[in-house]
């Protein structure tokens, strides 16, 4: 935390003027406003009357998304880095592109910024095809992974760089830079060069620089990857707050599913160039579209099995490792006969004896007997690995809601049980 010291110093004094600045920020940062990409010959930047109706109705058109990606493909030789991706992003959204390294998420982001050209497909911003628009003419800004701060320029000049290129008047640049410095809490560091800043401070400069031009869309390429864990968590909160306050559209690329789930309102999961699923964090976690996503996003227990008979809203699936499991009957009929039953560890409960089957049906619970092999105490919760008699492992995660010792110990025989409604049936 020592590296953040100058921040605190600065925050102690001039932290107060921050709130009025934000008030001034809000009405201007409407998505409609920056659509004229700061024309070179507009030094005055008057707040025109035209901006007023936009203030009442911030979203230009509810039907038309701000950004529409249509069947976009990018090939490097024979390798399809991005493969027929179609995606709509609404104005004011905090969208995350999530995927392992090499899945094409950064390439997709770079196409939005204009550093790569799609081989197929179209990218529409505000209904306009931006393929022929050069990077320096796009109303889109990017925060680079390693920040790409100009080492020869001070914090102030780094932030002012884009404003100067837009031909803004000197006085306006000064005001805007001061606003941005206050926004990311860098007061007192304006004259420093990037190599005199800590990692966290550099990150803020990069953020302020990319926000200074008030882009329609802000692209963030692994914005927090270079920060340590504690700083990353606090910065996540700040980014979310900032995005809400500015009402700007953020698209963040990350390989960290926790980060994506914390910050984004919607997440697009990419793998091998394909966009596999687009969903809210909750839907992504609770109803992943595939085995791969289920395993990539959080922990999960998977049991492969044959689909059996359905009875009283329960579907029986005969698994090799866990016997017959009962799941809630899916709304649409299954296309395949071999499927996977998936259950998240926190939905698997442990007990010494099997719970009494309340109600009539014997299918009210799935019960698996086994021996605990590992106990991992993680503070907030404890993860148990239970080895079933078949040899398969089931993981169970229990919240530590009281300060007692772990309820179960290694080599203890337990029953792992879970509700059919908590199970997922994955076909691929």
């Amino acid at each position, binding site marked *: 935390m020592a590296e953040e010291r100058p921040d605190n110093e600065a925050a102690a004094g001039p932290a107060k003027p921050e709130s009025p600045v934000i008030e001034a920020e809000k009405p201007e940062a409407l998505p409609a406003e920056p659509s004229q990409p700061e024309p070179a010959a507009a030094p005055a930047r008057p707040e025109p009357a035209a901006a007023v109706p936009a203030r009442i109705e911030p979203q230009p058109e509810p039907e038309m998304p701000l950004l529409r990606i249509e069947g976009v493909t990018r090939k490097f030789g024979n390798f399809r880095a991005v493969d027929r991706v179609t995606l709509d992003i609404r104005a004011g959204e905090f969208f995350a592109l999530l995927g392992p390294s090499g899945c094409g998420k950064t390439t997709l982001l770079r196409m939005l910024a204009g550093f790569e050209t799609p081989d197929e497909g179209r990218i529409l911003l505000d209904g306009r095809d931006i393929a022929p628009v050069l990077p320096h003419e796009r109303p889109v*800004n*990017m925060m*680079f992974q*390693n920040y*790409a701060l*100009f080492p*020869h320029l001070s914090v102030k000049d780094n932030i002012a*760089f884009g404003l100067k*290129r*837009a031909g803004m008047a000197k006085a306006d640049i000064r005001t805007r830079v001061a606003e941005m410095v206050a926004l990311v809490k860098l007061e007192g560091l304006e004259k420093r060069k990037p190599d005199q800043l800590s990692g966290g401070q550099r990150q803020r400069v990069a953020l302020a620089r990319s926000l200074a031009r008030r882009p329609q869309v802000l692209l963030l390429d692994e914005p927090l990857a270079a920060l340590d864990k504690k700083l990353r968590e606090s910065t996540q909160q700040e980014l979310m707050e900032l995005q809400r306050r500015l009402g700007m559209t953020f698209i963040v690329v990350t390989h960290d599913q926790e980060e994506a789930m914390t910050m984004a309102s919607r997440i697009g999961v990419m793998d091998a160039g394909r966009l596999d699923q687009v969903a809210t964090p909750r839907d992504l976690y609770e109803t992943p579209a595939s085995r791969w996503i289920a395993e990539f996003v959080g922990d999960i227990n998977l049991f492969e099995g044959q689909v059996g008979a359905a009875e009283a809203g329960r579907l029986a699936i005969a698994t090799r490792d866990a016997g017959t499991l009962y799941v809630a009957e899916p709304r649409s009929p299954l296309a395949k006969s071999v499927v996977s039953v998936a259950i998240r560890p926190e939905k698997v409960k442990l007990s010494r004896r099997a719970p009494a089957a309340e109600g009539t049906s014997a299918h009210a619970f799935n019960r698996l007997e086994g021996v605990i092999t590992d106990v991992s105490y993680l503070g907030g919760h404890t993860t148990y690995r239970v080895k079933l008699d078949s040899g398969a492992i089931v993981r169970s995660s229990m919240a530590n809601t009281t300060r007692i010792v772990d309820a179960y110990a290694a080599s203890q025989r337990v029953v792992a049980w879970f509700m059919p409604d908590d199970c997922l049936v994955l076909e691929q």
Partner: protein
Amino acid sequence: MSARRIFARPASFAAIAPYLWMVLFFLVPFGFVLKIALSQTAIAQPPYVPLFDLWGGREATVAAFDQLSIENFKLLISDNLYILSYLRSLTVALVSTAILLLIGYPVAYGMARLPQRWQAIAMMLVIVPFWTSFLIRIYAWINILQHDGLLNTVLLKLHLISAPLVWLSTDTAMYIGIVYSYLPFMILPLFATLAKQDPALLEAAADLGASPWQAFWQVTFPLSLPGVGAGALLCFIPVVGEFVIPDLLAGSNALMIGQTLWLEFFTNKDWPVASAVAVVLLVLLVAPLLLYERLQHRQLEAR
């Protein structure tokens, strides 16, 4: 503890080694030259007086010291032959450095933008001419530039000129020779600074609305200034003292200071004046070096 002691000695030796080198191979010889510069010519062997006799006792040494004078330096100021020589040397060096920068920068820039494996080849192409003797390469230029040489032949064949032009023994020929010989010294430091620049910086500049031209002047060029400084110094300083190229390629109506020095030393056998010329040249060259050093220092402090 013991490990520290073992390392302490070589470390301290390493620290003084550069100073030792400077004293042995720069300050001591410079002392000799300075002493000769303060002496007078004599028809003798060696051709100057006084000579220090280390076994002559204290009185002889004092007497020898009394004979030293700054007459030779006064001569350099009074005779504009020397002043003109110095001025010509500085002008030639300045013009050459400017031309070298104008040619070297685009070449280095292009090299730095090549794919990695082509960079090594380009680097080889820049260095390979060094494998041929410098003198032979200058003689080759004489061949190219002479009356019926390659250049005139080609120009005549292309009907660009109707009669052979005079190239040899002109300033143009000299500049061609200098630029040709020193170009690698300009390209290599420039290439080194340009190649290590993060390409993401240019993307960031473009992202923030800079056209490629603006990005170059706002980002690439300022960041390459250390390379520009190093290349300019690496060329400027030796060109000021250049002797061979102007002697072989330029006319004889205006001399560079290296040629004047050579004349004084070998033709006039006036070692003291030649030494004085050398001392002044050194002072002239050290001044810009110190200035550069100080600028760099200030830049470091400003950080």
